[in-house]
C-alpha cells in the first residue's frame, strides 16, 4: 500500500495526500494549512498559475451551494479547470454504483476529487480506490466530517483571537447530526484549545460525547458563561426524523442565540455559524447581523482555506 498505513490521508513522507477528516490529522499539518491560507487572504492579484493544467472535479452526491461554489472559486483562483458534477440528478438515479461513477471520472483524467456524500465514509472509500496520483477532499460526508469547514472555522478564530491556548469555546445546537461539530471538536483539541463545551438538548447530543474531551451543558446561559467563541450549528431540519424536538419555536426559546443569551459570554466573544442560517430558529437576526458576528468573514476565509488545501496536496506526489 502506497499510503501511510497509520493514516490514509498522509503519504509515506507524512505529507497531506487526501483530506478526509480532521480526526487524527497531526497538528503540524493543521498549522501548515492555516499558515498557507494566510498568504491567500487580502492579496491584490486574485489568480495564481499554481494548478494550471490540473482538473478538479466537484462531485456532489448531496446538494450544496456554498461549499461547492467556494471550492470552485478556490480551484479557479489557482488556475485549475473545474468540472462540477451533480450526481444526485445523474447516474446514481440510473443505478450506477459509487465505484463505477468514480472509475468513469478517473478515466476523464481528474487530478483531484472534491466529494460530498450523504453517507459517512464515502470519500474515504473513494480515496482507497482511486489511482495513487489522484487526491480526494471530503466536502462533507453524512454525520462524519467536514474538514475544510472545521479548518476555516479555526482560521477565522485564529484571525480574531490570535491564539488557541487560552480560549474557552462553545459549540451550540444540533451536535448529533452535525459533521461540522465533529470536525471542530477534533481541530480544537489538536490545536490545544483548553476548554471545549457543547450545549444542546439531550436528544440532539451524541451519546458519550464527553469521550471526545468536551464539557456538556444543557442550559445556554450556564454553557455560554465567559466563553470567547460561540459556534452555532444549523438545526438540521431535513434530517430530523422522529420526535427529537417538540418544535422549532421551542428550540429557539431554549437554544436560539439571542442578544440576551449571548450577554453571558465574554463581551468580545465572536459568533460563528457554518451556514445556511435558520434565522429565528438557532440564531436571532440581531446576533447574526450584529457586531460580534463573523459569519461573512468565515465565507471569505473558506476560499483561502480551500486554496491552501489544494495547493499543499497537489504538490505532494
Amino acid at each position, binding site marked *: 500500500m502506497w499510503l501511510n498505513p497509520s493514516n490514509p490521508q498522509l503519504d509515506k513522507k507524512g*505529507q497531506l495526500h487526501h483530506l478526509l477528516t480532521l480526526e487524527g490529522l497531526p497538528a503540524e499539518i493543521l498549522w501548515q494549512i492555516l499558515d498557507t491560507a494566510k498568504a*491567500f487572504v487580502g492579496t*491584490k*492579484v486574485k489568480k495564481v498559475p*499554481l494548478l494550471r493544467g490540473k482538473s478538479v472535479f466537484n462531485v456532489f452526491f448531496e446538494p450544496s451551494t456554498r461549499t461547492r461554489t467556494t471550492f470552485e472559486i478556490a480551484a479557479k483562483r489557482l488556475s485549475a479547470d473545474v468540472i462540477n458534477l451533480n450526481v444526485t440528478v445523474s447516474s446514481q438515479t440510473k443505478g450506477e454504483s459509487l465505484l463505477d461513477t468514480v472509475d468513469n471520472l478517473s478515466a476523464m483524467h481528474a487530478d483531484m476529487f472534491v466529494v460530498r456524500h450523504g453517507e459517512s465514509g464515502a470519500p474515504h472509500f473513494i480515496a482507497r480506490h482511486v489511482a495513487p496520483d489522484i487526491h480526494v477532499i471530503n466536502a462533507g460526508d453524512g454525520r462524519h466530517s467536514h474538514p475544510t469547514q472545521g479548518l476555516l472555522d479555526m482560521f477565522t478564530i485564529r484571525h480574531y483571537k490570535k491564539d488557541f491556548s487560552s480560549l474557552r469555546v462553545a459549540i451550540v445546537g444540533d451536535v448529533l447530526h452535525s459533521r461540522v461539530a465533529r470536525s471542530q471538536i477534533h481541530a480544537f483539541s489538536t490545536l490545544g484549545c483548553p476548554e471545549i463545551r457543547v450545549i444542546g438538548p439531550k436528544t440532539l447530543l451524541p451519546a458519550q460525547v464527553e469521550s471526545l474531551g468536551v464539557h456538556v451543558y444543557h442550559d445556554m446561559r450556564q454553557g455560554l458563561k465567559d466563553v470567547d467563541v460561540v459556534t452555532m450549528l444549523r438545526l438540521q431540519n431535513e434530517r430530523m426524523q422522529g420526535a427529537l424536538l417538540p418544535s422549532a419555536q421551542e428550540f429557539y426559546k431554549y437554544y436560539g442565540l439571542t442578544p440576551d443569551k449571548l450577554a453571558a459570554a465574554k463581551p468580545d466573544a465572536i459568533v460563528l455559524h457554518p451556514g445556511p442560517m435558520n434565522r429565528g430558529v438557532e440564531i436571532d437576526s440581531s446576533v447574526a447581523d450584529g457586531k460580534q458576528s463573523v459569519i461573512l468573514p468565515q465565507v471569505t476565509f473558506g476560499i483561502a482555506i480551500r486554496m491552501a488545501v489544494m495547493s499543499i496536496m497537489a504538490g505532494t506526489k
Partner: protein
Amino acid sequence: MPGNPLPDAEQLLTALIEQMRPAVGPETGLIGIHTGGVWVAERLHQALKLRTPVAAIDVSYYRDDYAARGLHRDVKRSEIPFEIEERDLVLVDDVLYTGRTIRAALNELFDYGRPAGVKLAALVDRGGRQLPIAAQFVGATLVLEPGQSVALKRDAGGRLRLELREEKR
C-alpha cells in the same frame, strides 16, 4: 572545507550599492524575492535613500518545479505597496542560479501591471543558468563545486552572511 572561502556579504552589498547608485532614482521600485532577496532589498533601499517603499514577493505559486518539489512550507504573502504601472523596477535576489526564480518573479510582476522596465540585482551570481536571464547588478560571481550551494543568512543584528552548503544526495 578549511576556513570560509566565501566573500563577505556586507562587502558585496557595498559593491552592489555603488553599482546601482547611478542607475536608480527616488521613484525606482525595489522588489525583493523572499526571503534573502527581501533582506538585500531592504538594505539597498536604506543606502540608496529611495522614496518608494520596498516590495516583497513570494514566487511559490508561480514556480515551474512545484509538481516535483511541492509547496514551500512557509509561503509569505506578496506585498507590493506601490503602483508598478510605468515604473522602473529592480528585482532583488540573494543568489542567482538557474534563473527560474526570476522567470517566476517576472510572471508574478506582470499580473500586477506593466512596469516601464525591470532590472535585476543579485548579491551573488553562481552561474548555471537554464534560461536567458542576466543580472545588471552583481555583488560577486562565484564558482562552486558540483553539489555545493550557497545561502544568505541574517544574524540578530541584521548583518548578512553567506553560508556554503554541501547537498546531501
